């Protein structure tokens, strides 16, 4: 874990059926994670609209995570297919506007993957620390 004194603000959208339960499991298993995360529970990662993520960046979040069920395991059959298309595209659009696409993380964490939740969050937090503060709000 790099330490450059910068503590990023990170927002995570977790789906009710997999990732939120995965986060719970990571919690009850007492896995250590960086405390930079704010979690918002949604019923499906497909419910996360692009406007929310853009607003999060506009309001000064340094990184945004969208976590859902693995492809094929979605509680709503193909909700996460749309999530994937949407946020892969949004990453490219952020790049076109000059915002590092690495500030947006899209990953799949199932309810039994507390360990993976810890890994994903730790890696993403340290990547955002490297990138530094959100360039949109920085003067």
């Amino acid at each position: 874990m790099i330490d450059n004194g910068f503590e990023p603000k990170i927002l995570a959208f977790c789906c009710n059926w997999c990732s939120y339960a995965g986060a719970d499991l990571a919690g009850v298993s007492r896995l250590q994670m960086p405390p930079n995360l704010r979690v918002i529970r949604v019923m499906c990662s497909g419910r996360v609209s692009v406007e929310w993520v853009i607003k999060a960046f506009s309001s000064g979040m340094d990184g945004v995570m969208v976590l859902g069920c693995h492809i094929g395991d979605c509680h709503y059959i193909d909700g996460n297919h749309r999530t994937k298309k949407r946020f892969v595209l949004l990453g490219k659009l952020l790049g076109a506007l000059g915002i590092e696409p690495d500030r947006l993380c899209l990953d799949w964490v199932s309810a039994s993957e507390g360990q993976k939740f810890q890994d994903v969050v730790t890696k993403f937090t340290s990547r955002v620390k490297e990138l530094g503060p959100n360039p949109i709000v920085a003067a």
Partner: protein
Amino acid sequence: MIDKVRQIISDLLDRGEADAVLALANEHGNVQPYLYKKGDSLDNLVLWPKYSMGPIVQSIQNADPALKLAVVVRGCDDRALVELAKRNQISLFNVRIIGLACTEAEAKECACAHPYPRSIDVGDKIDGIVSSDELAEVSGKDYGGRLQFWKDAFARCIKCYGCRNGCPLCICEDCVLEDDAWVKAGEIPPPFPIFHLIRAYHLSDKCVECGECQSSCPMDIPLTSLYAMIREEFSGLFDYMPGADEDRKSPLVTSLEEEPIREGTA
């Protein structure tokens, strides 16, 4: 070229294949859309400047859905009609399309990459302009440079909504850009990048490169360069070009089995 268009229009009207033909007319020095009926003089017909025909077709069909309409279109109009039809805004069932290929000078003026409709009735197909200087300038920058470029450009925005109002594909009745949750009323310029990035995302699967956004913009924001980059990213991911195929749905509303993301791009 224009005589051939006149010929096609009068043939269609005389044979009764169309009740009316939508084209452009020069009325007292002003070019505007005009609905030619049988017996009308075609002397005031003009082809240039281009004019976005999609919304006009939509209002004609709203008023008279049974009208057998023919419409003179350029490449961008043709693609706009296809996208509007896909989204159930118009019906192409009763519409006869008279395809007009742009000349080299016209394509250059629009910096258009696809200056021809799906089927060409008049004119010759020419190659499009691959990249404008401005586009090359901004896409050659690194992230920091691009961000500065767009920050400077969008700082000029006076939030007149011209880009949205001029766009033939901005069809939502309730626009999120007027919703206080995303864009607060009374803030000028609108906070970067929320206004333009939401619009860019919403247009990513429908932009037909007509350039109306930029020509509507009173502050000279290089929107066509932004949308050119977005179209390139979109076709890179999904191999999809808006307006090219009436039967192919937008990849954003289908599952990964129906429209996968191209390998190596995600």
